[in-house]
């Protein structure tokens, strides 16, 4: 039986400039609707049969909307939603939302916060501390520069399971590997954190990236986390500014081909299934 091929990271949206102000110049390719039918078509063409939808808007409406879409879709196995973690009302929000079995985790767009040390804020950490009792994981969206404080953050919550998105966004465009490599290795020493192999093409030069340019970054992630703590993700449709969906899937397959079949299966679906407790 072929094991499930899971895309651990994608988005869905009904585009409006008001709701998605971050879609800047050059992102015309994604300034339109991407809904479940598009997802089904795109993923099945690439042999992917399960996916985890991740919040884009930072509202409770987004979380409810994504859960609603997930309930009607066989391919969407889980949702990483958004809740107001810094607010005291978040306990009630979590109680209401966590009864939906498809809510697997939450995320806040930390790397867009003006405060580089947002991740260490008391109110934010109080919210994070609530997640474990609801069996929710937390997706960490950061840039390379946030890694030191992220390590301190992860250490504050040793029982919480974390997933760092997009390999913590190294500066692939600049061809720089430090201090990202050392900091990521340090982060990976914490066993309660996993890593998504995603969002790489958008950190490279969108029009001229090559697989050989990405391979060293993949090798760092493999060494730091090991296949059993890595999960494949696409960041569709965002990746479309730089690559086709199928192109990214095939690139990843090639970049991990030196691993055993078992190890590749962990990366291409088993890790995501286990961490997010997908059916």
């Amino acid at each position, binding site marked *: 039986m072929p094991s499930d091929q899971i895309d651990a990271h994608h988005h869905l949206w009904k585009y409006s400039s008001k709701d998605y102000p971050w879609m800047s110049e050059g992102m015309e390719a994604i300034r339109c609707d991407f809904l479940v039918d598009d997802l089904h078509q795109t993923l099945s063409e690439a042999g992917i049969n399960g996916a985890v939808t991740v919040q884009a808007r930072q509202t409770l409406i987004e979380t409810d909307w994504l859960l609603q879409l997930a309930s009607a879709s066989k391919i969407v196995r889980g949702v990483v939603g958004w809740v107001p973690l810094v607010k005291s009302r978040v306990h009630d929000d979590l109680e209401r939302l966590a009864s939906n079995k498809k809510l697997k985790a939450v995320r806040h767009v930390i790397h867009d916060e003006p405060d580089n040390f947002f991740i260490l804020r008391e109110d934010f950490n109080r919210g994070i501390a609530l997640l474990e009792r609801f069996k929710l994981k937390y997706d960490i969206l950061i840039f390379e520069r946030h890694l030191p404080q992220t390590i301190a953050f992860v250490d504050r919550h040793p029982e919480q399971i974390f997933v760092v998105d997009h390999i913590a966004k190294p500066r692939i465009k600049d061809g720089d590997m430090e201090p990202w490599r050392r900091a990521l290795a340090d982060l990976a020493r914490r*066993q309660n954190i996993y890593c998504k192999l995603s969002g790489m093409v958008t950190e490279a030069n969108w029009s001229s990236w090559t697989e050989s340019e990405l391979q060293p970054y993949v090798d760092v992630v493999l060494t730091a986390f090991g296949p059993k703590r890595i999960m494949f993700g696409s960041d569709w449709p965002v990746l479309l500014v730089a690559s086709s969906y199928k192109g990214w899937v095939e690139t990843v397959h090639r970049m991990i081909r030196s691993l055993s079949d*078992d190890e590749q299966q962990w990366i291409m679906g088993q*890790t995501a299934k*286990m961490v997010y407790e997908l059916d």
Partner: protein
Amino acid sequence: MQYNDLGKTGLKVSRLGLGASALGGVYGAVNEADAIKAVHVALDSGINFFDVAPAYGGTVSETVLGKALRGISRDRYFLSTKVGKYTKPGSYGEDTLDYSRARIRASLDESAKRLGTDYFDIIHIHDIEYQNREHTEWALQEGYGSVLELKGEGRIGGVSFGIYPMDLWQRIFSSLELDAGLVHNHYCLNDTRVLELMPLAKAKRIGVINASPFACGLLTDLGAPAWHPADAQSRLVFQSAADFCRRRGTSIAQLALQFASQNPAIPMTLFSAADPALVKRNVEWHEQPYDEMLLAEVRALLQPVRDKQWSY
């Protein structure tokens, strides 16, 4: 190697037995020649009981065990297999459950052919709780009846079940005539619930067979395979305990094997390995007493997953 009476079966079984699930690639790719050697090393170490199932590796475990037992005198070992659950070759998923009389009788013939023997000392009715217990009643009625019939015909020596949920075990032990019960994952470092069944087992002389001393891989340095239902948080707890043992210059697997196989109330514990070196190692570990202090410390570390029940 110590030998114990297995309930009222009349069998005198080695305190350590070999489960053949690993021979079918359930825990990773297997070299057939090594797997055959593993079985022979087990025999030479004094192990006289082999357990298998058609479901393991989609019949591959039975085939490989059969190859290993070819030429070995049938009176040198006891053999059990299972009925009712079937998987496609090369995997441990996509199960078919069929507890009909026809399928069970055919299954016995198929297993007999693969294993090269016409007689099974014990037949376990397999995983009747799977698929949300949709087939449990069927298994307990037609399944049980069919296996009892085979015993009456002299084709098998004893009737047993191979399942997990404790509430089902209580029901089966109290309401059915059984010769043995293959209880997995309920006497290991993190779960000792098989002890709840001991009074009934003693009263009705049911031979309790303990299986999965390593909790399907959770109690090893490598951790459990992807198909194991344990969530990331639970795996973390097991991993911390494994790290702790490593820092102490030992391994959690050693403590796991020793603890699970040395309780005098339990006649036999099965482990599964397809590597002859691991078989040898496990037998050696079994013959040594474990460190009581270490046991206390490790069980304290495993407290968050103590008696946690998994949904296989």
